[in-house]
């Protein structure tokens, strides 16, 4: 696997995680009383932009690799996302949940070994 392909695959996962953080932040802002409308529009828009770019990159991968080899790279995303949720969204993550997340990521890496 070439370096370009590898960094694009990782970049794709970062993009996916960042878009989810934008979306959840927008939902949190919408849940405030009164709702922070401008913030919801801003972060909702950032979510759509990040997802669109992610989708086009993803289609590029699907054209050149089997789905069961592209998908495993999403294994990076549970760990990246939980770190992001803890740091940026201040979500509380139990020790048990960390164990589960490690298992999921290890599992997804194993799925990717071919």
């Amino acid at each position: 696997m070439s370096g370009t392909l590898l960094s694009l695959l990782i970049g794709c996962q970062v993009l996916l995680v960042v878009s989810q953080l934008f979306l959840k932040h927008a939902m949190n802002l919408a849940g405030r009383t009164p709702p922070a409308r401008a913030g919801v529009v801003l972060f909702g828009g950032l979510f759509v932009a990040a997802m669109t770019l992610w989708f086009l990159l993803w289609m590029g991968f699907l054209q050149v690799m089997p789905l069961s080899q592209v998908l495993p790279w999403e294994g990076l995303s549970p760990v990246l996302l939980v770190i992001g949720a803890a740091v940026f969204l201040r979500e509380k993550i139990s020790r048990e949940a960390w164990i589960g997340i490690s298992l999921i990521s290890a599992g997804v890496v194993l799925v990717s070994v071919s």
Partner: protein
Amino acid sequence: MLDVLPPLFPVSRLLNPYLQLFLTVVLVTIAEILLKQGAMASAPASVDWLGLSSLPSRRVWVGAALLVLSSGTWILVLRVLPLYLAFTLSSVVHVTIPVCSWLVLGEQIHPVRWTGIALVLAGIWIIARPVSRVEEHP
């Protein structure tokens, strides 16, 4: 942890975040299979990183529409569940997509991959267990 978890049956059962999470997983799985079929049918001779040549395929459009729909169900999930919980539970797509790739597309799953699938399921079980315990005894 109790205070962040929603009750098992909110006012409207259709809006139950776990039902919406299930729908999201089903939609995403079907969408990915359709996208792969569409992308394969339209794969260009040379590499095209943005995948724009996949856009004429009808399966790609249906797959994309299902992905848009899954964004809607996903938003209903995120309205209630913390992101880390929703996202880790949605990792079950790493089981459903390889299994459906095997059943529908005929892609191979060797023993190492099955082991990985088992680990993913174990991780999801560990995360889901305390949630279901809280919900059975609110």
